[in-house]
């Protein structure tokens, strides 16, 4: 297969049309000459027209061929030379796609094992003069000689990390950039269509992919545990299955080693399971499918926090607040107690409404300042406006509100805004509401979202929120400000709050601030890994121009072909010279004869 070192030069092939275009554009009315013997000219042209046309066609073809040959030579084409035992010193980057999908087993043969075997065949052709790199799903180019890379291959396993093939190719191309030796990229992959992304490598690219169709697969794509924390009464999880459609599959879910709940799910659909209550604390929720061709996506985990419902002291004189609290209490989402004071500022966690009497604002602000809440009430605004949609509360009409002003250096803890200005804020264990929860102030109390808002307000916001984050292995995750340590099982990592953490393994990672667990990071395989459908060779060829796609069994023989490729520039230039001479000979010969 012909490949080009400078394929963009091939745009110059359009120059082949220039002689014709010039001829057409430069065509003009010739001068008239009086000549009595026109009849002889007519006879002459009639008799020789065919021959002249043929001559002109030959000249045109020769000239066009000349342009084409020169452009092709400038594009530096090369072809593989067969029968070449060795190869010139080369630079080769071997990309092994050991992403979770490589763990699939097709026709009894694990894809990962095929990839490793092919990688060894490629390395088997390397010589000590070659520069070699290995890139796996972790995305780190590792340089080494043949033996070193063979050792790396021996230690390689199926990674929980996803590998974007386009990015890996671009990285390999960057690695080869400074290399003076002829470079080549060998990509060994299951060619999962969801992993394909565009790349324009300047080095020749050989893609090795398994033979035969990709195996059918189903996996768990997502777990939705609803609002957290769960109460000790338990909760409901919704599990979404992904993969190839097929019959119903049994799905189970459990909290740690507690009894599992089971249901039947279908790929592409969701199923809900109710889990029994558990004592307060952090739990690892595990959802599982029966084993199939790809084991990595048959299990998915999530962190669940179980906490008792908030013990709330609410003011029965506030009609709407009292009604909402009664409903929540009747649904066992809160109980009466002193943990959270609702409606006024208490000694502990409090949800504070502004007082009806504006004269009491000053006193309230002074108490807030003494509690170091960091926020205070400002001016009263009676201009009707709408709250901005957010996670805490949706778009609500606000008729009256106090502006909330930060008293500290920063402006943190804003939970909801109206026209971009704070409306609900939290400072420490105090939540300040800009409007009273009454229809004269806001339409929130008479809207459908009022009860969920009150639930979140009392069970989460007032008691201090916890961070629940989900990520795929290898993805960068920005940690909450207070986190100082990440712990998973027996392993722990010292981290800096606000920094980026890249989980290498799947599983639940707990985020600790000192000795307190303030959140959890659930790490699972990327759901796209469950789609094992393989891209066609043509698709790969379209995304990666010039890529040569071969079977994994043939990739060993195809490797290092760039170094054993014949440079076609010299033959093309010699042919161009020959064509030029023939053209000159024809043109001058015919002119002389004329």
């Amino acid at each position, binding site marked *: 297969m012909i490949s080009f070192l400078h394929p963009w030069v091939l745009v110059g092939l359009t120059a082949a049309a220039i002689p014709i275009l010039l001829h057409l554009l430069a065509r003009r009315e010739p001068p008239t000459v009086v000549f*009595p013997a026109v009849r002889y000219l007519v006879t002459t042209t009639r008799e020789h027209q065919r021959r002249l046309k043929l001559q002109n066609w030959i000249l045109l073809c020769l000239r066009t061929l000349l342009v084409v040959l020169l452009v092709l030579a400038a594009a530096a084409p090369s072809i593989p030379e067969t029968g070449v035992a060795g190869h010139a010193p080369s630079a080769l980057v071997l990309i092994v796609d050991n992403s979770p999908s490589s763990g699939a087993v097709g026709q009894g043969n694990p894809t990962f094992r095929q990839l490793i075997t092919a990688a060894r065949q490629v390395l088997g052709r390397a010589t000590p003069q070659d520069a070699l790199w290995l890139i796996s799903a972790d995305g780190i180019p590792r340089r080494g000689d043949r033996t070193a890379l063979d050792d790396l291959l021996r230690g390689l396993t199926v990674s929980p990390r996803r590998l974007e093939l386009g990015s890996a190719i671009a990285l390999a191309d960057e690695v080869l950039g400074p290399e003076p030796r002829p470079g080549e990229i060998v990509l060994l992959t299951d060619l999962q269509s969801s992993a394909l992304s565009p790349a324009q490598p300047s080095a020749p690219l050989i893609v090795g992919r398994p033979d035969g169709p990709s195996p059918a697969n189903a996996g768990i794509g997502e777990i939705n545990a609803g609002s957290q924390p769960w109460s000790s009464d338990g909760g409901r999880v919704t599990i979404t299955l992904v993969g190839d459609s097929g019959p119903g599959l049994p799905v189970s879910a459990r909290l740690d080693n507690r009894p599992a709940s089971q249901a039947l799910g279908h790929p592409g659909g969701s199923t809900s399971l109710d889990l029994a209550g558990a004592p307060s604390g952090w739990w690892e929720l595990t959802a599982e499918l029966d084993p199939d061709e790809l084991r990595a996506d048959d299990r998915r985990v999530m962190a669940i926090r179980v906490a008792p419902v908030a013990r709330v002291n609410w003011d029965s004189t506030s009609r709407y607040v009292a009604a909402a609290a009664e409903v929540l209490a009747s649904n066992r989402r809160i109980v009466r107690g002193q943990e959270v004071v609702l409606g006024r500022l208490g000694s502990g966690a409090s949800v504070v409404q502004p007082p009806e009497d504006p004269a009491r604002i000053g006193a309230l602000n002074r108490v807030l300042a003494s509690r170091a809440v960091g926020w205070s009430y400002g001016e009263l605004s009676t201009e009707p406006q709408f709250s901005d949609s957010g996670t805490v509360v949706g778009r609500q009409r606000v008729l009256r509100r106090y502006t909330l002003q930060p008293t500290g250096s920063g402006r943190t803890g804003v939970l909801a805004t109206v026209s971009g200005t704070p409306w609900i804020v939290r400072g420490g264990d105090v939540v300040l509401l800009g409007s009273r929860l009454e229809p004269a102030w806001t339409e929130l109390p008479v809207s459908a979202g009022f009860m969920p808002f009150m639930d979140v307000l009392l069970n989460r916001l007032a008691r201090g929120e916890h961070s629940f984050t989900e990520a795929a292995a290898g993805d960068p995750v920005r940690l909450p400000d207070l986190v100082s340590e990440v712990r998973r099982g027996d392993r722990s990592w010292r981290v800096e709050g606000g920094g980026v953490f890249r989980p290498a393994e799947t599983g639940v990672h707990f985020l600790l601030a000192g000795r307190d667990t303030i959140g959890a990071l659930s790490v699972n395989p990327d759901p796209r890994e469950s789609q094992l459908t393989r891209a066609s060779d043509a698709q790969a060829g379209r995304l990666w121009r010039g890529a040569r796609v071969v079977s994994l069994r043939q990739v060993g023989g195809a490797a290092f072909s760039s170094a054993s490729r014949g440079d076609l520039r010299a033959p093309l230039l010699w042919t161009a010279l020959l064509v030029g001479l023939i053209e000159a000979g024809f043109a001058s010969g*015919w002119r002389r004869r*004329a």
Partner: protein
Amino acid sequence: MLHTDDTPNSARLDLLDPLEVSKLGGLEIITQGVVEGFLSGLHRSPRRGFSVEFAEHRMYQPGDELRYVDWKILGRNDRLYVKQFEEETNLRAVIVCDTSRSMAWSGAPGAVLPKLAYAQRLIAALSLVLIRQRDATGLITFDDEVRTITPPRARLSHWRQLLQVLAASEAGHGTAAEPALRRVIGQLRRRGLVVFVSDLLLDRTLALKALRFLRHRGHQVLVLHIMDPAEVSLVGTNEARFEDPESRAAVVIRPRDWAGPYRDTVRGVVSEWRLACRRHGIGYHQVTTDTPFGVVLREALAPPSSPA
């Protein structure tokens, strides 16, 4: 000054470049010069003989028969003169001249005579030669129709009349030779000589048919094919639109691409004319307008070759 005796070839007007000759004077003077030069180049006068009717005396020349020496003059003046006798005119000639628009063309104006100018001078010289031989000579001019008819006469004054007709003839429009050639029949009651002077850019079939007809009537027919050198060899390099002044037919070509094939075509045309004429016992001479008049006269007045 015109020379009437033997002169070197370089001074003979019949052998000079036609354009140079034409610059020397009017049609009459240069024609006489050409004819004198032509006749002096001949070993003997072609037709003047010694018949019964005395014509004139001239100086004895070695080789003259002694019986024609005028002994009386020798006795009186001690000079050798021979008596010349006028042959009876036994030949009537008609010259048919093409004056179509194409004849007025010159491939290099100022360097080569136009075909018509060349033909006028050639015909003037030819008719003078014939009239000097006491051959009655007439002239028919034509373009797309017959323009003038001058009946054959043998007097020298008739030659001047021919000159006037020639000088007055101008380039016309198209070319229709057949009517003019058929009009010859009316001028030649007996067998005679027909000289057809044309660039032959005409209907070849019709012209040949008329010429054959004349030949069939027993006339000696001579075709002088007048061509400009630029018609024989195509000159120029850049593309041009070549237009026929008569038919306005045009063709766009680049001369450098077509010079060779065109030359072959012209050769073929000349060859076809020559073969066709020879087949019917018609004399044919291709004449380019840069050929000295003497050369043409010598070829034209040479004894006719045997018909094929």
